[in-house]
């Protein structure tokens, strides 16, 4: 499996210009913002999501020119292949979180200010969120192929947001009060939400992993 991991790192090396650009943009914005937490959250999300989603792009690289067929002639099981993709996403998102944290820390040192817990929270929370999105994408990509999988996922997002829009219209029309949800959310601390996000990410990843292994085991690779 380590061989696959190295292969993917070498493939991602081809996107190093993109990663450098994302890093530079993040650094420039972070060093130039005045009041930070919201913008830190935005930039952390930007960087963590780009890096994590890059892991899914390696599935597309593998598929190009029937490459997956060859990969499974190597001493690699389908289970290991899937596991490696999740490992890559976790490593990528963790690396991105570390880089953003270091950048935010450097900004605080330059400005002589303190790194706030709220800022750390907003950076950290991006990792489970990015991994949830990643976990939703992988089964689609393995089932339908990289291109088709992306389209299917966009369709699924459309359906979810469409459903929420209809729900919103419905609650407005029938005067259903949902403000209690917002009040409940505010009642819990950042620590609680971090735990909720991590547990949710682990649960989604686990379900997604088993679904992906099942999809790949059933798939005829030719």
């Amino acid at each position, binding site marked *: 499996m*380590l*061989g*696959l991991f*190295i*292969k993917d790192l*070498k*493939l991602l090396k*081809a996107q190093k210009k993109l990663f450098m650009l994302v890093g530079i943009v993040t650094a420039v914005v972070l060093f130039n913002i005045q009041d930070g937490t919201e913008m830190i959250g935005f930039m952390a999300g930007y960087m963590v999501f780009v890096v994590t989603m890059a892991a899914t792009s390696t599935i597309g*690289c*593998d598929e*190009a*020119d*029937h*490459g997956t*067929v*060859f990969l*499974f*002639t*190597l*001493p*690699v*099981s389908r289970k*290991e292949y899937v596991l490696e993709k999740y490992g890559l996403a976790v490593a990528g998102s963790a690396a991105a979180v570390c880089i953003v944290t270091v950048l935010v820390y450097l900004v605080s040192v330059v400005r002589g200010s303190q790194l706030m817990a709220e800022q750390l929270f907003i950076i950290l929370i991006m990792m489970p969120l990015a991994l949830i999105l990643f976990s939703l994408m992988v089964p689609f990509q393995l089932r339908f192929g990289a291109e088709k999988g992306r389209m299917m996922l966009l369709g699924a997002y459309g359906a979810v947001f469409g459903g929420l829009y209809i729900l919103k219209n419905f609650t407005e029309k029938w005067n259903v009060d949902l403000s209690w949800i917002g009040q409940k959310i505010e009642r819990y601390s950042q620590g609680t939400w971090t735990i909720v996000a991590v547990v949710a990410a682990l649960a989604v990843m686990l379900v997604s992993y088993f679904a992906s292994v099942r999809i790949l085991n059933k798939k*005829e*690779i*030719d």
Partner: protein
Amino acid sequence: MLKIDHLVKNYNTFSLDCSLEVLPGQITGLVGKNGAGKSTIFHAVLGLIRPDSGKITVLGKDSQEITAKDKQKLGAALSDSGFSGNLTIQDIISVLEKLYDDFNKNFFMKQVEIFGLPYKKKLKDFSTGMKAKLKVLIAISHQAKLLLLDEPTAGLDVVARNEVLDLIRDYMAEDEERAVLISSHISSDLESLCDDFYMLKDGKIIFHEETDVLLDQYVVLKVDEAQYEKLDKSFILKVQKENYGYACLTNENAFYIENYPQIIIEKAAIDEIVTMLSGGDEQC
């Protein structure tokens, strides 16, 4: 080493139904036109596709139960498939080192040098010949017991073709327990390499013979209309209409030499046998 027993795989417009065996110490050739089902056989042996029925035994194990560890002993080079074009040989070496317990880096690097393959060039920029050599090199660099080579010489010029075939010969010479299943749609490529041949047509094995027997006993009788009428056709395998009369393929050259001294009898090249078997009229 490899035994395929009534492998059946059905697609919408194509059905495969074949049996074959590759013995230790042997190079077995699989010959057939494009679309005959050669790649389907390789994919089934490697467990990439599921047969509809039949049994495939690879290195003593059912092909559907082959683990990653078992694949350490297999070397495969498939047509139109390989490492991502964005990688370089330098990248591939570190991947193979981690994947194979017995990856022979020194041998690999030496061969890369001999073939003049560029280390830092992306694979997508390699010529067809370079890609073909690299594929076979990857397959033979980890002490595999069984090589599965699907069209390894496709699209190569004569020099590159011979280099690839020499690589396979050297691999076999190192250990007499090794075996190779190699396919090609150009049968003459395999004439000097294989110990036996299977011929595949429309998903069916229509012919199997050892190369020695093939070159020894198979001849083409060239006869005119009158000679053809008088000919004992008991041992004629195929007949093909020609300008001069008929070309008749037989594997009983002694019988015809003895009984028909007046007719022209020519040694059959494998290409000729394949062409006749896949195209001529059956006579038996």
